[in-house]
C-alpha cells in the first residue's frame, strides 16, 4: 500500500496517478485500433474525451447542487481540487449521455464505437484495481494462505491483485491486435468484455472484505454482476444465432 508518492517536496496521490495513466494508456490503445472498426480514431477519442470532461464537470456541479448550502458559505470551493467533492453517479450519467449525443451528431455507429472504446475500458479496469492496491481500499477477507498480504492489521486475500490480474487476463484474451477480433459482429467485442468482466467480479467479489451488503450478508456487487452476466450471455447467444442463420 502506498497512497502517496513522495517526489522531492511534492506528495503525489498515487491512486489518482495510476487511474490517469490507465486512462491515457487505454485511450492510446483505442486510438491505435479504432480503424479496425472502420471508425476515424480522432472521432472516437473525441467521444471519449468529451464524455470524460463533461462527466468531471457535471460530477462537481452535481455535488454542488446536492450540497448547495455548504457551497453558499464558501463559493470558491466549487473550484477546489478536493477529490471528495464529486458526485460520481451524476458524472457517469452526464458523461455517457454527452458522448452518446456527440457520437450521434458525428454519425458514429454506436456498436462499433463501443467496440473501439473497449480496449480503453479494459486498461482502465487494470489501473483502477492497481489504484485500490495503492490506496489500500477494496481489501480482501482475512486469510492465512501463503500469498496473503498484511493489510489493516491482519493477513488478507490480496483481492486487489486478484482483480488486477483478472483484468489483465481479460485484456490479453481480448487484445485488439488479434486477428479473430476483426471477424466479430458489431458490438460483440464489447459484450465479450462485459461478460468476462462480470464473471470476474462475480467470482472475485467473494474474496472482498469491504463489500456493500444486503441484509443477510449477500454482496450487492455480486448480484449486480450476475445480472450483467446473464444479460451479456443472452446477448452473445442471440449473436451466435445470427451468425448461424447467415
Amino acid at each position, binding site marked *: 500500500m*502506498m*497512497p*502517496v508518492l513522495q517526489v522531492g517536496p511534492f*506528495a503525489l*496521490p498515487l491512486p489518482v496517478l495510476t487511474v490517469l495513466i490507465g486512462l491515457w494508456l487505454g485511450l492510446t490503445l483505442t486510438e491505435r485500433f479504432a480503424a479496425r472498426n472502420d471508425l476515424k480514431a480522432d472521432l472516437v477519442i473525441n467521444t471519449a474525451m468529451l464524455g470524460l470532461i463533461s462527466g468531471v464537470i457535471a460530477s462537481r456541479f452535481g455535488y454542488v447542487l446536492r*450540497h448547495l*448550502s*455548504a*457551497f453558499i*458559505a*464558501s463559493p470558491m*470551493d*466549487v473550484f*477546489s481540487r*478536493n477529490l*471528495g*467533492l464529486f458526485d460520481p453517479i451524476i458524472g457517469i450519467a452526464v458523461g455517457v449521455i454527452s458522448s452518446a449525443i456527440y457520437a450521434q451528431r458525428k454519425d458514429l455507429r454506436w456498436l462499433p464505437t463501443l467496440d473501439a472504446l473497449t480496449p480503453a475500458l479494459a486498461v482502465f479496469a487494470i489501473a483502477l484495481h492497481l489504484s485500490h492496491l495503492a490506496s*489500500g*481500499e477494496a*481489501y480482501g477477507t482475512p486469510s492465512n494462505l501463503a500469498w496473503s498480504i498484511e493489510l*489493516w*492489521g*491482519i493477513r488478507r486475500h490480496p483481492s486487489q491483485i486478484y482483480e488486477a490480474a483478472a483484468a489483465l487476463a481479460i485484456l490479453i484474451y481480448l487484445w485488439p491486435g488479434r486477428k479473430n477480433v476483426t471477424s466479430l459482429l458489431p458490438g460483440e467485442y464489447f459484450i465479450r468484455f462485459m461478460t468476462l468482466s462480470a*464473471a470476474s467480479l*462475480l*467470482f472475485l*467479489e*467473494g*474474496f472482498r472484505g*469491504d*463489500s456493500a*451488503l444486503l441484509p*443477510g*450478508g*449477500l*454482496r450487492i456487487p*455480486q*448480484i449486480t454482476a*450476475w445480472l450483467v*452476466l*446473464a444479460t451479456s*450471455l*443472452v446477448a*452473445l*447467444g442471440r449473436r*451466435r*444465432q445470427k451468425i*448461424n442463420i447467415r
Partner: protein
Amino acid sequence: MTDASRWNFFTVVVLSLGVVWIWMSKVPHSELKDAAKTAPQTGFLAPDFSLATPKGEQIKLSDQRGKAVIVNIWASWCLPCREEMPALQRIYEESASQGLLILAVNATNQDDPEEAIKFSEDLGLSFPILLDIDGSVSSRYRLQSLPTTFFIDPGGKIDEVVLGGPMAEALLRVRVERLLKDAKP
C-alpha cells in the same frame, strides 16, 4: 444438440454456478456482528490514543464516543496544514455545540513544538492541539502525508480519510453535517 441449445445449456450452468457462489460467499452472520476491528481506514474503528495538550491536559480518543470527531494530523511547517486550519476553526465554532470535536494532532516528532504552539495561538485555535511527541499516533495511523484527516463518527468508526490538503471548507461542512446526525451535543 444444436449450437443454440449448447449455448443455452452453457448459460444456465454458468448462471447456476454464479447463484451457488453468491450464496457460498455471503458474509456470515457472525462476521456481520463482529465488524468492530481497529485500523486507520474507512469502515474500521479508529485506533485509540491518549495525548497531552501543551497545557498538560490528557485527551483520550475513546472517551469522545457520542461526539463526531475530526482527527487532523498536521505540522507547523506544512503549508497545506496551515492553509486549512482557519476553515477547521470556523467549522468548530459553528458545530462544537452540536457535538463536534476537532483534535489537531501535531506531528511533534517532525516539528518544532514551540512553532506549533505559536501557530495555534496566532490563529486563535480553540479546539485541542495535541502533541504527538514520540510519533506513536502518526505511526498507529500510518501517516503517509501531511495533513491527513480522519472523520470519525459518534460510534468511533472512521467515516472517511482525507490524505493531503488543504481541505475545502465546503468539504468539511458536508462531512460534519453527515457525522453530526448521530452525535450527542
